[in-house]
């Protein structure tokens, strides 16, 4: 694996630890307002300064990691399970099942720009954490399904699968014990890139006011609150720190996904 992958793993680990131990790391209550201290610059008392309501930006960024990663992990896990199942069914059974699933259903979901579909769903369903996660899973599963289908199509022709079949193994046994373990590597790559995508989508929707409603410290919401002309002029730190946090998180998971893909694909490794 290349150096960037390790950097990615280190950054991701840092953010995951921050999310887990957020209550110990944060210095202030994330919703505690102090109107006398509005837009205070970074200082020893407030490492990242304060925002429009005098809330501590550092603590909000720390708790923001929890929201981002929570949404990211739930979305990736649910999408992976659903996508893997559907993709496996499509690839394994082939024929008209595959024609309907990969020829039609996959295409319909890919026909929508992901973010637009999420926006549309949230616009009609209403905002909130649960609905946001639902919307992101609806746009997310198809990526895993395609990867899984491709892997199953490849692996099911291998000799050991044919041998298992000849020995009388059931379809579910062949899928679970023979095909799935061999398809897991590209799924991990997809999950890592999917994590970056989910974190980004959550922040995008929150930025648009369609994600997690305030006062929850979502990074997207914090950026939206800090981007007014006057705020940028007087207190750029309100925008800077959540901006860096989200960029680093997405960068980290992209590094990991990219590095793993290269590592697992010998053709790319040689280049």
């Amino acid at each position: 694996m290349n150096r960037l992958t390790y950097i990615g793993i280190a950054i991701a680990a840092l953010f995951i630890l921050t999310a887990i131990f957020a209550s110990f790391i944060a210095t202030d209550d994330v919703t505690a307002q102090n109107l006398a201290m509005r837009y205070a610059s970074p200082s020893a008392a407030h490492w990242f300064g304060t925002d429009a309501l005098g809330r501590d930006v550092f603590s909000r960024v720390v708790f923001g990691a929890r929201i981002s990663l929570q949404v990211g992990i739930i979305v990736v896990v649910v999408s992976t399970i659903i996508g893997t199942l559907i993709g496996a069914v499509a690839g394994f059974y082939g024929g008209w099942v595959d024609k309907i699933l990969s020829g039609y259903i996959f295409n319909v979901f890919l026909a929508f720009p992901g973010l637009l579909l999420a926006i549309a769903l949230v616009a009609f369903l209403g905002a909130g954490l649960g609905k946001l996660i639902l919307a992101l899973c609806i746009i997310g599963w198809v990526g895993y399904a395609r990867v899984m289908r491709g892997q199953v199509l490849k692996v099911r022709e291998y000799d050991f699968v044919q041998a298992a079949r000849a020995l009388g193994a059931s379809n579910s046994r062949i899928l679970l014990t023979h095909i799935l373990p061999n398809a897991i590597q590209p799924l991990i790559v997809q999950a890592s890139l999917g994590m970056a995508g989910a974190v980004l989508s959550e922040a995008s929707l929150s930025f648009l006011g369609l994600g997690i409603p305030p006062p929850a410290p979502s990074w997207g919401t914090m950026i939206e609150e800090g981007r007014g002309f006057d705020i940028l002029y007087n207190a750029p730190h309100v925008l800077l720190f959540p901006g860096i946090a989200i960029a680093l998180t997405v960068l980290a998971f992209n590094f990991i996904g990219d590095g793993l893909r290269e590592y697992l694909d010998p053709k790319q490794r040689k280049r």
Partner: protein
Amino acid sequence: MKHKTLNFLRQFALLLLVVWTVVSLVTLLIELVPGDPATAIMGENATPEQIANFNEKHGLDKPAFFFSYTGEKGFVWTGANNRYLDYWTGLVQGDLGKSFRTDRPVLDMILERYASTIKLALAAMLVAIAIALPLGVLAGTNKNTLIDNSSSFVALLGISLPTFVIGPFLVYIFAVKLGWFSPTGSANPEDIVLPAVTLGAALSAILTRMVRSSVIEELGEDYVRTARAKGLSERKVVYKHVLKNGLIPVVTILGLQLGVLLAGAIITEKIFSWQGLGLLLLEDGIGKRDYRLVQGCVLVISVTYILANSLTDLVYRWLDPRIKFS
């Protein structure tokens, strides 16, 4: 030849099927609204009479679909006089319904903004190409050197930095600190620069990587050795031979990304108050709960996206005869 036509027709049928499904899904999205649209628009204090009038005016008093589901009787046929068919009837006549708020035809409202969004997307694409071509060629011809690694790093950075982070940072530097551009609006011709750079940043990163790997791949081909053996300068080899062949996959990405840009424009338009389709969707549609307008915007953006993708596919096949319809 016959085989090819058949494949083309099959591809086209699939396209129609996908468009039909997307339109149907968007049409039925309105059923997801918690409560009913009339109350959402007119508030809790509206009288039953006002609500009934509103529903009648917008056809919301009709059943949603050909059949409905009731707990006791299961599925019940409700007849052809339903909202789904109404929306389709309107659609084939170029009518996307009337806005719940302003009573104006939704299509008119969308057409007023459509050109503005396309302009932004194309400008972003130009920015992306202008950055990606030289950077990608530089990285590809200097494989595994410091130049290559740093351009890869810049590219990954561009992919990872979301538009809503890049945008405000650009505003901070070029509008707040330097004062070169106005922070928002689309009144002056130069106002497009910051939004276009913001929207095009991620694409330029993706393109840079594509151009790089394309150049590396093509440099290993026999015709490059021949060209070099002929005594052509390296510059000519790269720009006349390698780039020409290497650009084929890049063109595909460009076409596919036009759709992504259209969707990404929603965020960019919000950052810069760019009066396009995205802002119409967010502010007038979602912000004012004008569900008919939201439907129209989602529909137009999706269909544009699908058409851009299909068109790309055709161009790609035309450019590279090695690719057969699969």
